[in-house]
């Protein structure tokens, strides 16, 4: 039996999942800044329930985001520590991919998470049963630019509620279904991780990293000096 632990911390929902005797067990808790307080306890509970220990791990799968930077690093850091300690590889799964997997309806799916600052992280998928395919790369942009060529479309993730009126390009779809599910879950992540594990699509804990998508996080300092300068000719 392959033992894969899945961790998902990109949103306000902190969750962990483990497959025990063919069934996926999941623990989750929603709240701001709860992740560092609950994550390892959830994992410990899963191991105890499954009568397993970290040393039994074949891989640790972690949601790589995009999402809350700090939340991501709590999941990735704990995952790295667990994987390095158990000398097993890590499997990176996009948190948006996990979210898309949770859609109850097949076909065109847009997974979207609130990125704050008036933007959303989003990606469009084609889903069939438990197989998803991305239509394009992961995005961060304003809600008004979120677009799809499909008329029959499912939208999933907390960004819809946060920016409800702003998705002008989606609002006119003839068959738009808004999923009630708002956060990516470790259980969905685990299903994707198992697919990747079978393809040996894993990496070493030393090179595992979040995928932030939003990368312009700081302003460069200006080189200009205050005060009078000789060359300024003042």
């Amino acid at each position, binding site marked *: 039996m392959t033992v894969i632990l899945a961790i998902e911390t990109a949103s306000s929902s902190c969750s962990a999942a483990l497959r025990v005797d063919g069934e996926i067990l999941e623990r989750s808790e929603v709240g701001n800044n709860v992740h*560092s*307080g*609950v994550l*390892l*306890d959830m*994992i*410990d509970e899963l191991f105890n329930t499954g009568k397993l*220990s*970290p*040393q039994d791990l074949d891989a640790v799968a972690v949601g790589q985001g995009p999402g809350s*930077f*700090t939340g991501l*690093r*709590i*999941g*990735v*850091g*704990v*995952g*790295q*520590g*667990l*994987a*390095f*300690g*158990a000398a097993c590889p890590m499997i990176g799964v996009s948190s948006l991919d996990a979210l898309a997997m949770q859609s109850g309806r097949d076909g065109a799916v847009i997974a979207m998470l609130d990125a704050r600052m008036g933007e959303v992280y989003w990606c469009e998928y084609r889903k069939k049963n438990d197989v998803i395919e991305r239509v394009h790369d992961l995005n961060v942009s304003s809600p008004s630019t979120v677009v799809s060529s499909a008329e029959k479309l499912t939208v999933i993730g907390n960004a819809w509620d946060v920016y409800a009126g702003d998705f002008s390009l989606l609002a006119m779809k003839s068959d738009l279904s808004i999923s009630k599910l708002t956060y990516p879950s470790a259980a969905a992540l685990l299903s994707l991780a198992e697919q990747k594990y079978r393809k040996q699509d894993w990496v070493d*804990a*030393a090179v*595992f*990293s*979040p995928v*932030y998508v939003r990368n312009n*996080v*700081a*302003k*460069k*300092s200006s*080189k200009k*000096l*205050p*005060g*009078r*300068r*000789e060359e300024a000719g003042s």
Partner: protein
Amino acid sequence: MEKALPNRLLSPNRVLGIETSCDDTGVAIYDSQQGLLGHALYSQIKTHQEFGGVVPELAARDHIRKVIPLVDAVLKQANCERETITGVAYTSGPGLAGALLAGSAVAKGLAYSWGIPAVGVHHMEGHMLAPMLEENAPEFPFVALLVSGGHTLLAEVKGVGEYKILGQTVDDAVGEAFDKTAKILGLGYPGGPAISKAAEKGDPKRFTFPRPMTDRPGMDFSYSGLKTFALNTVEKELIDQQTVCDIAYAFQDAAVDTLVIKCKRALLHTNSKRLVVAGGVGANIRLRAQLKSLTDKMRCELYYPRIEFCTDNGAMIAYAGSQRLHQASPDLSFQVKPRWSLEDLPPV
């Protein structure tokens, strides 16, 4: 292999230490009987240089990339089996919240995976105990001067966890004042070494900066005024290279002088014969020379960690963790403390 140091441990231990409070990722292994077995550091200076100061989000991103590779490197360097590690220590505060969380998460995950305890360490306690890693380690009690980009404080140290703060900065840290003044002078980041270098060519007589808070009793510091004085001087003067050097000289002279005046007060106040200097500014040559002359005059002993352990490092966290491993909580949750007073620590 380094000298084993006497300590008050209940049983021998071997601790992996992880430091991620600011812009250095440090990892080390300390053995309570064999001393420091290995250490490695990744400095993020290049990441932050173009921004003229530490960008917290970028610092956290670097930490999460670097901790595991450094742990791997240090285990190999120390040539020690994972099974021999008996505890993991990590900096749980004070510092940048995101940076602290990155290191804490890896440390807690690793300790859980190995089935060993994890202990959160106070960053400044790590600094104050860093001289204990040297051959010539100070005995308790002593006065500690902690000077870095984030901290400026004087403490009376009677033992591990027995700290009384004698004075601290009421605004900027001294290292921060060096950084900000260097930025004003266009000298780049980090400011300490840049200002020291420029000051070498400075004219001691051209400018005189004030010595804040030395005209009244007490051991607190203030550095934001000194930085403002530098800014005002720059705005008044025609800035050429020599003027930059002259201002650098006057700034450093005032910054260092203030520290020395307060150290003298602290030694007199506590009637102590030992002064321990730690933190990045402890590498400043001018400060070292002035403190040497002060302690010689007062017939006191002066202690520093080796230069590489003046700045943030994993060795001091591994050492402090070794002292406190028996206090590790079995709690699997982890909370960082961006603000945390040394005086809140329990004695060992």
